[in-house]
């Protein structure tokens, strides 16, 4: 059974918006030299972050990873702020302090991930612990890839969450490659969901390119967590339709795999389904695409004209109270022209 019509349309919108923003970043702005650092996209994986985070309540929290653009957008970040983030602009989500997908804002209950993947797993358990201690009926969605499940923090985090029965849903996008390392060199199992058995939590594997499958599995896990049933692990099987990043052409991936998974594109599948089931007409879908193109055009142009941060902002924000900050005081006096007078 499909979710209600508005949710269905919203899911298509956010999947298409993610794709459009990331395509613009990777294939245009990056090549034009307007993105100052690395680019990691979630092409082909949009159903996972969208089908899961679309059903959260305002006070729920997400801990996204680097291929979850849809989750950031659904939680309320604007396309302009995301693009400005990539360009290192002052108006970016982190005001130029952080790169690309390392975005967070507790006002939107988005935790910024660190590059040491799986570090957010115990952090998500701690957020869920706070919900439990405060008797809030909220949940945390924690996202990561297949490679992250090899790390110790992943296991420590799942174990702690399970022992404490805290309300968190662990969502794995198993895109079958961690940078250049294929799954069989990453782990001796085929289905990551079986790792859940070691922590006595429900573990399921779903088709990560089917947004309804992701939606349904997440709905069940969220409901369990909200009702005090503890954490779950959902493995979403998908495929990374790019290299690891914009500077990696992914030549180590057999071409047939790209072809095979290209036919399972989650956006095309969802569009086709919505038209077939008369949730949307072909014209509705075309209009949505046009609207998204316009939105992103406008966001790009605003972000391009946004200012860069002032160099002195380097020294700001290490501590809550900067007056007690000795290293910064040193740096400020060192770089001050008055020092040498």
């Amino acid at each position, binding site marked *: 059974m499909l979710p209600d019509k508005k949710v269905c349309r919203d899911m298509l919108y956010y999947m298409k918006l993610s794709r459009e923003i990331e395509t613009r970043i990777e294939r245009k702005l990056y090549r034009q030299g307007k993105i100052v650092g690395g680019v990691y996209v979630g092409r082909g994986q949009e159903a996972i972050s969208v089908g899961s985070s679309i059903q959260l309540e305002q006070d729920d929290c997400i801990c996204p990873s680097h291929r979850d653009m849809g989750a950031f957008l659904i939680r309320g970040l604007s396309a302009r702020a995301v693009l400005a983030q990539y360009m290192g602009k002052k108006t970016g989500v982190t005001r130029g302090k952080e790169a690309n997908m390392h975005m967070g804002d507790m006002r939107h209950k988005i935790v910024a991930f660190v590059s040491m993947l799986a570090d957010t797993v115990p952090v998500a*358990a701690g957020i869920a612990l706070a919900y439990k201690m405060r008797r809030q009926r909220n949940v945390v969605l924690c996202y990561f890839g297949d490679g992250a499940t090899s790390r110790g923090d992943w296991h420590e985090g799942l174990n702690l969450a399970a022992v404490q029965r805290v309300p968190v849903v662990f969502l794995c996008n198993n895109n079958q490659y961690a940078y250049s390392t294929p799954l069989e060199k990453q782990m001796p199992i085929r289905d990551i969901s079986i790792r859940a058995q070691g922590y006595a939590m429900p573990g399921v594997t779903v088709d990560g390119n089917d947004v309804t499958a992701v939606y349904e599995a997440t709905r069940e896990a969220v409901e369990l967590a909200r009702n005090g049933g503890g954490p779950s692990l959902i493995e979403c099987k998908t495929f990374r339709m790019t290299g690891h990043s914009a500077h990696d052409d992914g030549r180590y991936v057999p071409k047939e795999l790209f072809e095979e998974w290209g036919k399972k594109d989650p956006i095309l599948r969802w569009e086709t389904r919505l038209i077939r089931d008369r949730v949307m007409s072909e014209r509705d879908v075309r209009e949505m695409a046009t609207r998204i193109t316009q939105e992103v055009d406008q966001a790009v142009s605003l972000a391009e004209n946004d200012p860069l941060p002032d160099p002195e902002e380097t020294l700001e924000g290490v*501590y809550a109270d900067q007056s007690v900050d000795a290293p910064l005081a040193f740096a400020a006096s060192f770089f001050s022209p008055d020092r040498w007078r």
Partner: protein
Amino acid sequence: MATTTYVEAIRQGLWEEMTRDDDVFVLGEDVGVYGGAFKVTAGFLDQFGEERVMDTPLCESAIVGAAIGAALMGMRPVAEMQFADFISCAFDQITNFAAKCRYRWGAGVPMVIRGPSGGGIHGGPFHSQNPEMYFVHTPGLKVVAPSTAYDAKGLIKSAIRDEDPVLFFEHKYLYRRVKEELPSDEFLVPIGKADVKRAGGDISVITYGAMVHNALEAAGVLAGDGVELEVVDLRTLVPMDKTTVLESVKKTGKVILLHEDTRTGGFAGELAALIAEEVFEYLDGPVMRITAPDTPIPYSPPLEEFFLPKTSDVIRVARHLAAY
């Protein structure tokens, strides 16, 4: 009035903060039923319940990670490392996640990580370390190392109320060896303020943690020879109280930098550089370091005794400087 030990002072400080603020909770290995390996949280489980006194699995990284998550939500977690040595397992969460949240994306992480550090108890290489410098070197963290019961109680309370992550290194040699009468009214000791534990005009000894007591002992001996040591207890390494350090050096012109931590990359080196940059013209002698040697901390009593800086080292170096 009864005296209070250093360990009891920390216990009282934690207890008072947990009573004052429901958001404060402790988590760590064996902190609940057992009351902590050093009994810092003895009796807490009965008073505050198992949610706020949380026995965790053996997982230092997840203990810190979970504390970060709770702190992001506005809780005030106090994570215990059973021995400060084990903090290495949580290094990544502390230095990459907790330390950088505010700078990267403006999210405050008000949390405390406390643990017993230091040698002198025949703990061997993994129950005696002084790991403070790994964290002193990471912007975004605060690092505290009290030497007295009064400071320990006042600083743990300030650490819990701080808006940023604070590493609180308790010296386990001091736990039951130092005690004093504490005020019955509530008090705080501010983070970032050094304390002159003994005033003197001839030589500044700048130190922290257990070595404060060696410095004071040496000062007592040297006073009989007419050499007056000024003992500056840093109490907080980050943020460092530059003013108190530099004022003392300006007054005495001679300085000994003393710590139990090993030599290379120790805090003494940082202080020596600061003194050279800022008050070079006040110096009347070489800046001297007294530290542990660059080895792991050994187990057997004669080896550990050799490793740890001693009162006699301070006396010897002070006499050399006095005659300089």
